[in-house]
Each structure stands twice: as structure tokens, then as C-alpha cells.
């Protein structure tokens, strides 16, 4: 029973932070809320039993990706004019929520009522969610996906390097006072 209520709380927090991420005007704020969102999602994963995934969520999302975002936001140090952050509750948001409802109806209908019963519990000794089980599956059945992920990461690194690199502009040499200037 504790788990059920905990799940509800965690879900509520996730939704709250997601809403704040979407609708707060300043990007630095929405970034911070997103980090919090990742924490709560990690909590959700723990409730769902996959611990390793939860920790990876924090390590990769909150720890690495969001660092990039915060860095860029801080580096660019944009004032509101450049950001152009006047968010208007655009009619598209209506479309969003309509979509959401219709999707839910589709799930309920297609999958049938049994989706509403709670999922059966884990066996005490089941190794679901642990590193070993995941590693087992990852490195045997999905080894190609694993290698491919590596290749994609390499690609991204090279790509970013190439994109961000800017040939330093050859600065004209400044002559100190006591040096003679070329005539």
C-alpha cells in the first residue's frame, strides 16, 4: 500500500515539474526544473524495480546532459530580449492535451481493462533491475545495438568537435612601444 501511494506522489511530482519545465519563461529555470524532474523519474524507476536504470538516469541525464545545457545557458548569458521568451498559451497546447486524452482512450481500449490491475510483484530472488541481469541481456541479445550506440557516440563527439571548432582569427601582431615598427 505504501508503494502505491508513493507511486502516486512521485507521479504527481513528475507531472508538476514537467509542467514547470514546459511553461516557465526563462530557460535556466526550466533547465533546473528538468533536473529535478529527472530525479523524480529516477525515483519512479526505483519504484518500478529497475535500480540500475534509475542511477543511470541520474548519472547520464542529470549529471552529464543537463550540465551541457546549464553550461550553454550560462555561457550565452542571454538577456530576455535575445531570448524572446514571451510564451503565449498557444492553441497548440489545446491540441496537445486533446492528443493526450485520445491516446489514453486508445490504450485503455486496445489493451483492455486488465491494464488497470496492478502488475504482479517481483519474486524475492528475481534479479530484475539489477546490473547483472541488464548486462546479461545487453551484451548477448542486443550486442549489435550496444556497439551501434558506441559508434553513434563517437559520431556525436566528432560532429560536435567539428561544429564547435572555430579557426582562430589571425590577430594582427601588436607592437610594444620599445619595439621598432616596420616602416
Amino acid at each position, binding site marked *: 500500500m505504501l508503494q502505491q501511494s508513493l507511486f502516486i506522489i512521485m507521479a504527481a511530482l513528475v507531472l508538476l515539474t514537467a509542467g514547470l519545465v514546459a511553461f516557465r519563461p526563462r530557460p535556466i529555470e526550466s533547465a533546473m526544473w528538468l533536473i529535478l524532474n529527472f530525479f523524480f523519474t529516477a525515483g519512479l524507476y526505483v519504484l518500478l524495480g529497475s535500480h540500475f536504470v534509475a542511477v543511470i538516469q541520474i548519472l547520464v541525464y542529470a549529471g552529464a546532459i543537463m550540465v551541457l545545457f546549464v553550461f550553454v545557458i550560462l555561457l550565452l548569458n542571454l538577456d530576455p530580449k535575445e531570448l524572446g521568451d514571451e510564451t503565449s498559451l498557444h492553441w497548440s497546447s489545446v*491540441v496537445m492535451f*486533446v*492528443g493526450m486524452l485520445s491516446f489514453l482512450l*486508445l490504450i485503455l*481500449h486496445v489493451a483492455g481493462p486488465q491494464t488497470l490491475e496492478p502488475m504482479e510483484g517481483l519474486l524475492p530472488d528475481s534479479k530484475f533491475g539489477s546490473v547483472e541481469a541488464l548486462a546479461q541481456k545487453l551484451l548477448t541479445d542486443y550486442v549489435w545495438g550496444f556497439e551501434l550506440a558506441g559508434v553513434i557516440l563517437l559520431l556525436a563527439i566528432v560532429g560536435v568537435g567539428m561544429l564547435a571548432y572555430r579557426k582562430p582569427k589571425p590577430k594582427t601582431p601588436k607592437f610594444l612601444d620599445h619595439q621598432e615598427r616596420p616602416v
Partner: protein
Amino acid sequence: MEEQSHLQCIAALAVLLPLVGSALWFSLGKKFGEKFVSIGAVSFLALSFACIAYIFFTATLPLRINFFQWLPLGTSSVSFAFLFDPLSLALSMVVTGVGTLIHLYATGYMHGDAGFGRFFSYLNLFVFSMLMLTLSDSLPGLFLGWEGVGLCSYLLISFWFTDEANASAGKKAFIVNRVGDFGFLLAMFCIFKVFGALSIPEILQTVQAGNFSGDDLFWTRLACFGLVLGAAGKSAQIPLYVWLPDAMAGPTPVSALIHAATMVTAGVYLCCRMQPLFLLHLDVLNVIAYMGAITAFFAATIAIFQNDIKKVLAYSTISQLGYMFLAVGLGAPVAAYFHLITHAFFKALLFLGAGSVIHGLHHEQDMRHMGGLRTKMPITFWCMTIGVLAIAGVPPLSGFVSKDEILHNVWGNHDWTLVALAFTTAFMTAFYMGRLWIMTFFGKFRGHHEAHESPWTMTSVLVILAAASALAGILNWPHLWGGSETLGTYLSTVVQALIHHAEDPAHALQSSLTLAVVSSLVGLAGLTIAYFRYRNFSGEEFSSPAFRPFQNKYYIDELYDAIVVKNLRMFGKFLWKVVDGFVLDGVLNGSAALASRTSTYLRQLQTGLMQQYALWIWIGFLILLLGAWTGRS
């Protein structure tokens, strides 16, 4: 029928000489001057006439000379070959003979004209295509000549193309001929459908030998009508005669050669050549007869009221041709052919005489401004007199003999309307020729310029033609009058006469004599009435409005213009405005406009804002979702 090699080269020479000549005069005319062109042209024609004469006297007819295979038509093929038989030889003799004389005459007439070389090249080209028409063995060959002749008549009519009237007259002649040619083409297609071959001797053999099913008869009947339409177009008969009076816009030698002697007779030659085919359908022959008779009478009535000397002669040509078709229609091709030959002589004479009158009066063509020329131009006067008497049918001249032959046949046919038409036309012919004769040569001189006799080149030709038209009668002097009918026997191998006078010889002689007397009396009456009417002619005549339609040629031109030309122009405008403008262009521009209009709306979608694209994707997803949702089974 085997070819001797030397005959082959003579025949080729006879036909190709004019062609080569036309090319020569056209290209070198300007460089070498008039003298070179005139000597060259006349000598080339004379040489060609000599070759034809040589074949005429030595070759065993019919002689078929094959050159090469010309048109492969599926199974059969059309070969380019010449067929020398009495019909074609007689006509080609006339063409080359009269042609040579007219060339000689033209050297004088056209003296000093800028397009001298060009004129003679067209004339030679005309003679070449006329020879092709007469001598060719197959229908397409004949058609080639037929078109060539049409082309040259166009070129020669609008020779002085700088003047708008001449150019439009040339166009008119060409277009009307084309209508006729359409009939001819139709006939050729039908003949090919029925006989599967287009060479004339082959066709005529199958016609005489074979019997035909109902279906074939229908097609051959259609072919005959096609041929009749072609002949009417080329020989200026009732429906398609309008081009001949306007063709007078060309120089006079052209009128003489083309519109009197040779080209207009092509229709008659065609009908005589294809006579066995026509014999299959007697109703067609009847149509020809009536066409001829009506044309003769109609043209004669118009000729009386014309003031232009060449127009009078043009209408008289139409009516004489009507006579020939009448004869062909009644199944007397020999009489038609004989009249054709005699007509060629005296009509050429009349035209050339009128030409020398016009030449003398410095291109004055209106008879009301002539008069009293018999003292100023004696030779022209005497030659014209012989011509007028010949055409009026005064014995013993050639005109009388040939016309009497035709009248005899008409009388023999006992069709009283035809007889009435024929005799009245004879009287009117005599009357308007007499009018012409008296207005130009008698009374006071009403012109502006001082008249002078033409040079020897023109007057010598007049004298020769006068002699020919006087003596041509003996060519086919009827047996009844002790004549040998040389032309009749000569042609009998190819065509056969339909009406056999079954009466006993005595009665026949008596009736033909009375007929001869009657016709000559009619002619003389016409002449005397004309003499008394115009003796002291003062200048205007037929002023009362009653004659208005006659003077305006029954408004036929305006009628044609109203019926055909206006509708064609309207139809053309319709096609241009509605079909092309609205439908085709409309569809084209419309679809383009439609594309551009829709694209302006669709362009609003391309806002460049990435988020809007994402929104459309999302909406698409939703629609798919709803589709899946509703489509669930």
C-alpha cells in the same frame, strides 16, 4: 508494247526539255538578257514539238515507255511511265504546237518586262506539267501533271504580283482548282479501293472485262463523280468556273495558252481518257451533259454584257467548254475532241489578237475606249475577223464544222432541253463575238492613245493561227459531206461513240444538211444583229437597271463569298477564338493559374517556423490515431 531504246530517249527528251528550260531561264534569265531567253525558250519548245511529232508519225500506237518504279503501294506499285496513244498524242501535239507559237508571240508581247526570264521559266514549266498530264500512264502521274498545271496557272496569273488584284486572282484560281483536285483525289482513292491498281490501261482492261458487285459499283460511281468534280474545277464548269474570268489578270499569252488552249481542256481529256469507266454509269454521263449545256448557256448570257475584251473571251471559252462537255456527256467524245482542237486554234487566235490590240493601245482593255481600229491595225483586224467568223460557226471555217458535229449529236439525242440550250447558246455566241468585233474595229476611235500595229513576231503568229483555224475543219470532215473523218478513225481505237445514227443513209444526209444550214443561219443572224446594233456605237449601253444582274455576273462571286468564304472565315475565327483561345490556351493557362493559386495558399504553410511544422506532424498523428480508433474492428 515493247520499248525501243531510241524511242525512250526521244520521249524523255520531249518531256524534260521544257523542265530544263524553265530552270535555265529562271536562274540565268537576268544575267543573259532577253534575247538569250527568247531564242532559247522558243527553240526548246520547237525541239520538244519535233520529238512529239516524230513519235506521232513513226511509233506504232499504243506505245508504253516505262522509266522506273515510282510509288510502291503495298502489293502493287505505280511505275513512272509514258503512254503514247491517239488521245494523248493528239492533245500533246496541240499543246506543244500552239505552245511554240505562243512562246514566239510572248517574246514580242513581254518585251521590256522586268521578269522576262521568270515568265518564260514558268511558261516552260507549264508545258512540262501539261505534257506530264497528257502522257503519263498512271493516275498519280496524271495527278502530278494536274497539280503542276494548277501551280503554273497560279504563278502566271499572279505574274505581276506587285498588284494586289493579280495576286488575289492567282490565289482564287489556285484555291478553286484545289477544290476540283479534291474530287480527283477522292476518285483516285475509290479507284484504288476497287481495282487495287492505279495504272490507267490496267484499270480500263479490268473495267471492260470484269463484272462488278453492287458494292464495287457504288465506289466506281463515286469515282466518276470525283472525276467530274475534278474536270469541272480544272475546265471551269458550272460550280467552279468563277476563277477563269479573274484569271484574265495574267498577261495575254498566258490567257491564250493556259486559259484557252491547253489547261482548260485537261478536264475534257480526263473524261475522254476514263470514258470506259463512265460508260458503267450512264447517269453520270447525263450529269456531264447537262452540266456542259447549262454552263454554255449561262456563260454566254454573261459574255454579252462584258465590256472588257478579255473577260468576253474568257466567258466564251467557258461556254465553248460547256459545248465539249455536252458532247462528252452525250457519248460523242470524238466530236468533243474535234471541237477541243479547233477551239484551241481559233480561241488562241482571238486571245492573241486581243493581246495585240491591248499591246497597241498601251494596255487599254475596255472595249468602250476602242473602235475604228481596222484601219490602224489591218493584219490584227483580218486575223480577228477569221477568228470571230470561226467561233460564230460560219461555214466553211473549222468552228462551224466542229460545232455542227456537236449540234448534230445533240439533235440525234432528241433531248429537247439540251437542243434548245445548244442552239440559243450558238446564237448568243455569234452575237457577243459580233459585238466584240464591231466595237473594237468599227465606228469612231474612242480611245486616248494613238494605236499602232504590233511587231512582226506577234502578227506572224496571228496569221499562222488564222490559217490553222480556217483549215482545221478538214481534220474531221464528216463522211456524209464526203469527208474522211481522219480524227474519228484515229481516235476510234481508244474511245467509242455511244449514239449510232440508225437511220438510213439518205435520210441521215438530208437531216445533217438541214441541220448545217440551220446552225449557219443562226450564226449569221447573230452577227448581223450585232452589226446593226453597234454600227454607230457611242459609248454606253444596257444602262437600264434590268440588266444590272447580268452586268454583275449574277452576283455569283458575291454569293460564293457569302456562302463559303464568310462561313469559312467565321469557322476559322471560331476555331481561333473558341477552340484555340478558350479551350486549349484556357486549359493550359487555367491549369497554370490553378497551380499558382493553390500554391499561394499552400505557401502559407511554409512559414519557416520549425515549430509549426512540428505542430502539423502532431496533428497528422492525431488524425491517424483517431483513424485507428474509429477503424478498430
